[in-house]
Structures are given as C-alpha cells and as structure tokens.
C-alpha cells in the first residue's frame, strides 16, 4: 500500500471511532444529569426554574465534548492536513 491509501484508511476509521466513542460517553453523562435533575424537580417543584437553567448550562458543557469529537472527525474527513500534504506533492 502506498502512503495515500494508508492515510485514507486510517483517517476514515479514526473519524468513525472518534464520533462513535465521543457520542457514547457524553450521552451516558447527559442521561445521568437529566435523570438526577428530574428527580430534584420532582422533590422540589418550587426550584424548577433554577434547576432547569443549571441543567441546560450543564448539558451544554457536557455536550460540547461530543461536539469537539464531531469537529475532529469532520476535520479528518473534509480538511485532513496529511491528505492535503500528500495530494499537494
């Protein structure tokens, strides 16, 4: 195999793995966060507005890790620097 093929194979496999693993664990974390927030709202309905706001901010924080993984895999597929280097040669 020449280096172009190796770079293509490794990039695509890594991009899939990045998004796959990077979506799995944030999803678990978000599920735990939402379930505990729902439990707190059920216990204290008066504080629901504060809990909801904090939940949204926390969910965005958790979700941004998944977004980082997505951005990395998008870079690997569409703007891969190694691929561009080989193509430019």
């Amino acid at each position: 195999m020449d280096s172009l093929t190796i770079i293509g194979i490794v990039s695509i496999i890594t991009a899939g793995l990045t998004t796959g693993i990077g979506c799995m664990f944030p999803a678990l974390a978000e599920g735990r966060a939402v379930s505990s927030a729902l439990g707190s709202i059920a216990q204290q309905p008066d504080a629901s507005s504060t809990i909801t706001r904090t939940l949204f901010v926390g969910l965005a924080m958790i979700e941004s890790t998944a977004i980082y993984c997505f951005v990395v895999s998008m870079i690997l597929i569409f703007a891969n620097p190694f691929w561009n280097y080989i193509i430019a040669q």
Partner: protein
Amino acid sequence: MELSPDETIFWEYGFITINLTLVTTWAIMLLLVITSFLITRKLKSSIQISRWQYALEIIVLGISNQIKEVGIKEPKKYIGFIGTLFLFILVSNFLIIIPWYSPPTGSLSTTGALAVSVLLAVPFFGISESGLLAYLKTYLSPTVIMLPFNIISEISRTLALTVRLFGNIMSGGMIVAVLLSVAPFFFPVIMTALGLLTGVVQAYIFSVLATVYIAAAVSDKKSKNNNKQLEEI
C-alpha cells in the same frame, strides 16, 4: 461539501475578501438595527401601546430577568452587551428557515469573534466595577500558585465557547446536507426543525455563559458581603 460559509467568496482584493459570512452578518445587523429603530422611534408609555412595542418589551424584560437570575443585581449596565449577543445569535440561527441561507454562526471566524468579545468584556466590566488592582487580585485568588491556572481557564473557556457554537450550528447544516442526498423529502425538514431548537438553546447557552463569566468577575466583593450578612443572620 463546504464546511463553512467562509468558502463562498464574492469579491477579493489583496487581503480583503467579502465572503458569504460577512454578507449575512451585515444583513442580520442591518435587520436588527432597522427593526429596533423603527419600533423605538415612537415609544409610548400610555395604556395603549403598539403590538411591536409589546414584543420588544417582552424580549428586553425577559433578557433582563435572566441576567438578574444569574446573580447580577443591576442588569441595566450589562444588557447592552449580553442582549446583543443573544439576539444576534438567535436571529442568525432562526433564519435557517429561509432556503439557501447559511448561518454566519456556522463559521469559525464569527464564533471566534463573539468569544473574543466575551473574553475582552470580562476584564472590562470587572475593572470598571471594582478597579484595576482589585480585578487583578482575582487572578491570584485563592493563592498565587493558581495564577497560571486562572489564565489557562480564561483561554480555554474562550476556545470552548467558540467551538461549541460553531460545532452545533455546523453539524446541523451538515446533517441536513447529508440527509438531502439520502432521504430528500421528509427527514431534512425534521432535522431543520431540530436545528431551530438547537439554535435557540445555543443562543441561550452562549449568553448565559457570558453572563456567568461577567458575574464572576463583577460581583466577587458584593457576594462576599452577602455571605457575611447571611452568616450574621
């Protein structure tokens, strides 16, 4: 496939380029300025006010209440900055219901500029509230050892703000583009509706996080006084 609207270039001369991001950003700015100018030109304080003034009052009061809930006592000083961030991101995410429109928040340069303005606004508000020395002292709290970590946290949260907004909006557009080639008639509509929801949530998150950062820089002294009062009670 295009990653960002930066790659659609209309006009180029030297280092000056006019791309799609720039055009849509200016269009949204003009839209916001002209709309609010037309509404606030004839404000009334009687019982009968125009329906546009009602809408504007709801928006402004809503933003002001949200800022107050985060912990800033006088939101009037900060609503200009935070409300502008919120409205700009909200409108630019909402306009995806127009065909062939690509949101400027889906470009890394726009979100980077917004995050840098938050990065600069935090010390600006902090210094104007408590003075230069008192603000610089917050970098040394709790001990001097924490100085590099405080600086790193400033930079990393700016980076996080940038990539979060960019990634969310860009991924929405990307999913619609992928689905257009797989299942062209039904699913892109649903994903666009989901993109509207994501856009509103992201605009809210961005402005709330900016408010939290500003509140942390501004209300250090006051909150300590409040804590003391609470302890006395």
